[in-house]
């Protein structure tokens, strides 16, 4: 078995190489927030024949909505168009007028119409709740891990390592969607937050399986050093981690390829997250444990802050 734990600096560097473009994209471009967060309307219509998107834009502009963006969605043969614009109320005069005007461009298929409208105030509250939900999930999981690993020497270390791995996965998914938003105008919606929270759950799920093995092997003293024990535990759980991810990836790939278009981005976020989650549980979370137990993290901090190595750190060595 390859010695995974001793190459931890390589894995940390690889993660950093992945994270840096993600973080840069998030800082420079940010995310394209959809109407769930900003408020506004997303209106999907379908014609029996092809219609010039410019003409659709013109209809909205004529009705006092100059910022409408029109995009053809789905297969070109389906003639489906998605219009993103300011708030249009369902049941309003305005909507009726626009529908009539759109009807003059071609034959509309009313059974295939969908309109979702989100008020600006609702959007803001969803954005705040999203941040709160991610924070609450992190705290809940941290506490549970600390509880589950209460018999180890440093229960919170396991919790923190799992949370770092989880943030790593979340950042990668956020970064990829920032880049996708930059290049292909992909938006994030409330469903994306759902995907993000699921990824958090999955990432921790995977990490715990590895940690559980470390806990068991520590109790049985299967090897002399902590590093050896971690390495042994990873080797034992590697096949399982890969197999589990494979089964989840198989189902997600089926959903991505054959599922409806409305869940495509949602499934894509999950796909990226599952791969990142599997990687980080083996190559990040467990390695953080080793780096902490061997005082590499503490020493790195000391070097950064140019302090002398604290005496407590040396005496704590196992």
């Amino acid at each position, binding site marked *: 078995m390859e010695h995974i734990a001793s190459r931890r600096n390589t894995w940390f560097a690889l993660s950093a190489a992945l994270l840096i473009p993600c973080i840069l994209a998030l800082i420079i471009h940010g995310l394209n927030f959809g109407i769930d967060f900003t408020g506004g309307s997303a209106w999907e219509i379908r014609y029996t024949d092809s219609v010039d998107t410019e003409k659709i834009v013109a209809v909205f502009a004529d009705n006092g909505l100059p910022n409408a963006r029109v995009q053809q969605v789905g297969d070109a043969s389906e003639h489906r168009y998605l219009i993103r614009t300011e708030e249009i109320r369902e049941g309003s005069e305005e909507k009726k007028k626009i529908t009539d005007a759109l009807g003059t461009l071609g034959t509309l298929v009313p059974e295939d119409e969908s309109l979702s409208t989100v008020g600006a105030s609702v959007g803001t509250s969803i954005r705040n709740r999203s941040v709160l939900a991610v924070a609450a999930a992190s705290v809940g999981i941290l506490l549970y891990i600390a509880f589950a690993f209460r018999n180890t020497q440093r229960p919170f270390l396991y919790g923190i390592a799992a949370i770092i791995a989880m943030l790593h996965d979340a950042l990668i998914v956020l970064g990829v969607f920032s880049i996708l938003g930059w290049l292909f105008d992909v938006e994030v919606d409330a469903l994306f937050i759902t995907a993000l929270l699921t990824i958090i759950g999955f990432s921790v799920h995977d990490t715990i399986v590895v940690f559980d093995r470390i806990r068991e092997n520590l109790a049985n003293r299967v090897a002399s050093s902590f590093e050896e024990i971690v390495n042994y535990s990873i080797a034992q759980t590697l096949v399982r981690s890969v197999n589990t991810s494979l089964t989840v990836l*198989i189902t997600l790939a089926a959903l991505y390829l054959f599922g409806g278009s409305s869940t495509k981005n949602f499934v894509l976020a999950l796909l990226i997250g599952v791969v990142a989650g599997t990687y980080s549980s083996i190559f990040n979370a467990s390695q953080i444990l080793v780096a902490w137990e061997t005082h590499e993290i503490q020493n790195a901090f000391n070097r950064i802050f140019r302090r002398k190595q604290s005496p407590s750190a040396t005496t704590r060595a196992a």
Partner: protein
Amino acid sequence: MRTRNWWMLGFIVLLTLSSVWVVLPGTVLDIGGFKERHPIREGLDLQGGLQVLMEARPPDGGSVDKGTLDGTRDTLERRVNALGVSEPLIQTRGGNQIVVELPGVSNPEQAVAVLQQTAQLEVIDPAGYSLSAGMQVQTSLSQQREAQDAAAASPSPGASPAASPAATAAATAASSSEVGPVLGETAPTPTPESTANGPVFTTIISGTDLKNAYATTDQTGAWVVAFELQSGAADTFYNYTSQHIGQQIGFVLDGTVISAPVLRNAIGAQGQIDGMSATEAQNLALQLKAGALGVPLQVVSSQTVGPSLGRDSVDRSLLAGIIGLGAVALFMILYYRIPGVLAVLALLIYTSITLALYKLIPVTLTLPGIAGFILSIGMAVDANVLIFARLKEELRSGKTLARSIEAGFDHAWPSIRDSNISTMITCAILYWFGQFTGATIITGFALTLFVGVAVSLFTAITVTRTFLRVMVDWGMIRNPWWLGMGRLEMRAMAGD
């Protein structure tokens, strides 16, 4: 041990059969209409329809209390029932919002208009007619309102918003002065003026005259609804009630009689309605309160989905689910052999139990919900993967088959438990998050994933384990190759 395994196997078979029975569509073998009462609930994105999130905005800019909001919800429920929508969902959300989901509504514009009306509460003179709760009636006040709405709407649409508050006030004044002379007569009450749609009843007082209403108990401990009237209306009401003791009186909300008690004595500023259970009293108090306030509702977000758009998504997701399940089954059998076959069997049992629970709980199935379910299939397999990986290890360490199975399960359990609990924590938070976004889409996903994870714990531990035990008991698996051991590995162990 042996008998226990058999009992477990029997239990599993029974559970599976009943799940399959619940899941199977159609009315075949439908005992007592049970299946008809538990259909699979499809979300808006699957069957099309309308979802609106409305916010109560009292005219004076104040806030609404919980009782009024609940009352407003009841009012909406009654109107939605009048629209004839099957399986509507109406829930209060937070302190001042109500979410309404109307699956399969074909005319969303009309539905929104109906929902946004302000509740209209009236107390009417039955004029000799016998009233009962649920009756649809026409009243003098509602007729005046309609006439005014029509008058306001036709010349200039711009005038209508300003006209409505003034109109209500005028109507109230008119009705009370109209009632006056009628009350003076002791002779039998005149028959109300009839229209093509039946009699028009005289409005004695309206919602704006009601100060408060609440459920309470009287001296004998029986439940009553107590109400208080504004001072001006109290006189009108006293005049009327003192003349009609022993007769019925009708409380009408949005044209539907909600209560028709008999007057026992004259009522002024305060009165009470008795002869009800606790729940009935609470409901009536809520209805009266909401009707009195007439809280205007503002649509803050809405979603309409065309019916065939949803149908298409269902078909695609179903196909994706079948392909996903098939691919996972193939992978499991190729990699884990006999345990793989057992795991796939356990997976099918898992699928039927989960789907049956969706029907029974009931869980509203949405597109992300289907995604959650398919994802949970992957996670259900994980528990089996963990157990089998452990089983192989125990075999390698030289344990017997039976002992390896037990040790494999015991050792795999802590990690299965811990990892699944962390997923459940996430589900709980997702559910909470979904509650605030006003979207059943997210709560649906959280609920399906939660149910899936919970059932997978059961199937992995109980079903797979029992299968393996029974097979060993039967002597069906003697050769560890069937459990995924390599031939070379086995030879090496035998050589030890």
